[in-house]
């Protein structure tokens, strides 16, 4: 992973309307967040990093040249933030090693490029999913109940809950994959 200070591809002469920032950011935040999550899969850390990235982009929005790829710029900024995080938390056990970071970096953008197809397929898979599974995903992700909380609510071990959630995710990925294969989408 190359450590370079992020610069937009624009010349910075033309001031962009900062009102545009929100719409550009919203339409690209999933790409940027996905990129961060690949390197920093801890959700809480990833959210922090996302905020830092957004904040930096906001402050330096002048550097962005309208019409260029905002998502790519965001990913570049995020990459810089990720490296900074890794450098300042040398002892963190939650940090992927440098060689693994390079491996992820080599594949990350390609994965991002195909993400929209996967999410399209994911929507179809979710709509075909049985109600129990969807309910669990809903409580976990939309209502934000932690696995510990969910497990506590039903007096079940957390371990069992993770197994269940892992099965659901596996099922979803399998479904997404089948749909992509069948549609030859990429």
């Amino acid at each position, binding site marked *: 992973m190359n450590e370079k200070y992020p610069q937009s591809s624009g010349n910075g002469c033309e001031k962009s309307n900062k009102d545009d920032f929100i719409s550009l950011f919203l339409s690209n935040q*999933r790409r940027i*967040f*996905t990129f961060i*999550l*690949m390197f920093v*899969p*801890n*959700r809480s*850390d990833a959210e922090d990093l996302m905020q830092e990235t957004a904040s930096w982009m906001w402050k330096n929005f002048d550097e962005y040249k309208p019409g260029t790829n905002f998502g790519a710029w965001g990913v570049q900024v995020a990459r810089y933030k990720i490296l900074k995080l890794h450098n300042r938390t040398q002892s963190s*056990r*939650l940090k*992927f*090693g440098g060689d693994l970071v390079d*491996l*992820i970096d080599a*594949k990350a953008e390609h*994965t*991002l490029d*195909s993400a929209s197809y*996967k999410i399209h397929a*994911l*929507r179809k898979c*979710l709509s075909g999913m049985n*109600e*129990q*599974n*969807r*309910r*669990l*995903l*809903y409580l976990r*992700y*939309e*209502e934000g109940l*932690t696995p510990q909380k*969910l497990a506590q609510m*039903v*007096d*079940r071990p*957390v371990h069992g*809950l*993770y*197994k*269940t*959630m*892992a*099965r*659901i*995710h*596996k099922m*979803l*990925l*399998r479904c997404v*994959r089948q749909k*992509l*294969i*069948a549609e*030859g*989408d*990429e």
Partner: protein
Amino acid sequence: MPLDRHIELDELILKEIDGVITDQEFAELSDCLRHDPEALNYYLDFVTLCAAILKPGEVTLSDDSCCSIEDIGQSALWMALAENERTAETIHLEKEDSLSQIETQISVSNHRQSVSRVALYTAIFSTAALLLMIAFVVTHPRQSRDAVAILSGSSKAVWSDAADISRESNRLYTHSTLSLLEGFAEITFDNQAKIILQSPAQIDIEDFNQIFLHSGKLSAVVPPSAVGFVVRTAAATVVDYGTEFGVTADAAGHTEAHVFEGKVELRSGSDPIRFAGIMKLTKGLAGRVSETGELSTELMLAQPSSYVRRLPAKPTFGQPGKRIDLADIVGGGNGFGTGKDCVGIEPISGKVLKDLVMINRKLGYSHYFPVPEMPYIDGVFVPLGGHAPQIVTSQGHTFDQCPITDGCYWIEITNNPIASISGNSGGQALDVHLVRLGGIQFGMPLHPGIMMHSNTGITFDLDAIRASIPGVKIRRFRTMCGMSDTVIQQNVQADMWVLVDGQKRQGAHFIYNQTCHYTQMDVEIHEQDRFLTLISTDGGDGNGGDWTFFGDPALELETNNFQQ
């Protein structure tokens, strides 16, 4: 790496996302991603989907019928969890058992006693081995395996020792590698997709609807319930859309897909989702992908007869992994029983005749004729000798020792080894019978033959045959040949020849009742040999009564070792 192996990877990623992963689990996760490229791809896809679910607005997890938290009481959630556990697929964690056995062995060997030095060294080595095994299990997330198919039939099948088939139930699991050394095997998936493997073949069962063909040949029938069935190879992916098709692949990745019914997609590269090119193939068409994953722009005609599409009902002479039946190839088959009976090839035109004319004295004229209908036959001819070098291959190889003949032959070159006498004026076949050598009757499933009444020649394309059966070497050509035991004229003479690339490798001269009228021929075949030619000539006395043929004509095979 197939999805099922990731059940524990899923848990680790989810725990990491939630920030509850332990140091050891994080180390396991990192190690797995670092050393397993497919696990890394899986991880990236997993994270992509999680990000989509975590970010509001990307996907919807609720609709009108589901799922306000107020509507979900404890019992409903509990039931949801319980239902999920009840209906979840069984997951086998084989290594868990082996680990617990190891731990048990360690814990019970804890009392002192005097031991010999040999026993001590053995114990040290054993302990070291155990530690290595434990280290492996700890550093590699355990694989789960699902039963997804059954070995539903086989014919003369010989598996490698490592073949992973449940002896009790013939059930087949994901992540198993099956190496078929000889014969055929039929595998039926739970979704009713069915494949017939022709040896030598090595496959991985990757998922409930997906296999990886390392090398070999298979045919597949995919009903609507299994649409989307995938065959991956090292350089290509075949995706089915409800059809019947065949796939041939070698270890380097050269892949061919032939469609017999319906439609498939042939994609460049072994990733079924990410690919650079695509070729849609419909019934009757075939496509090819190079070892570098490049799709050939040339559409080919499918060759249904080069694939075994149902298990042989009876034992056949040709056996995958062991020997190719050249008589079956003369019948338009692949050498393993897919040819038709009673097929003739006219040596003066190369035409394939389905209706043999029993008595048919014709004059040939030395020309070499290709046989376009038969992919493994290079050409046929009537050897004339004397006038000009006799061409015996499409590459212009000549048979310089070809004796002078009268240029006449009686019947076509055929896989129906029969002889007859003619009635007056050659107008009627009398006493039609199967020929014999040394009391063995040929023209039977286990004793096929190629009737080559004198003054005919046929050349087989060894390279084309090799290309059709990846993973094998052709080692020898073996046959019994001569004049039938049933010849009725005394002292008739004939010569029979076996050439490789135009060079005589073996020849025999027969005089009925003065010499033995048949012999065994055994010719070594080298990897660079391209053409095998069989010839019968009239022995200098005309072709009358020369009931000459090649019995049990076989290319003997040697299977390359599979990579484990």
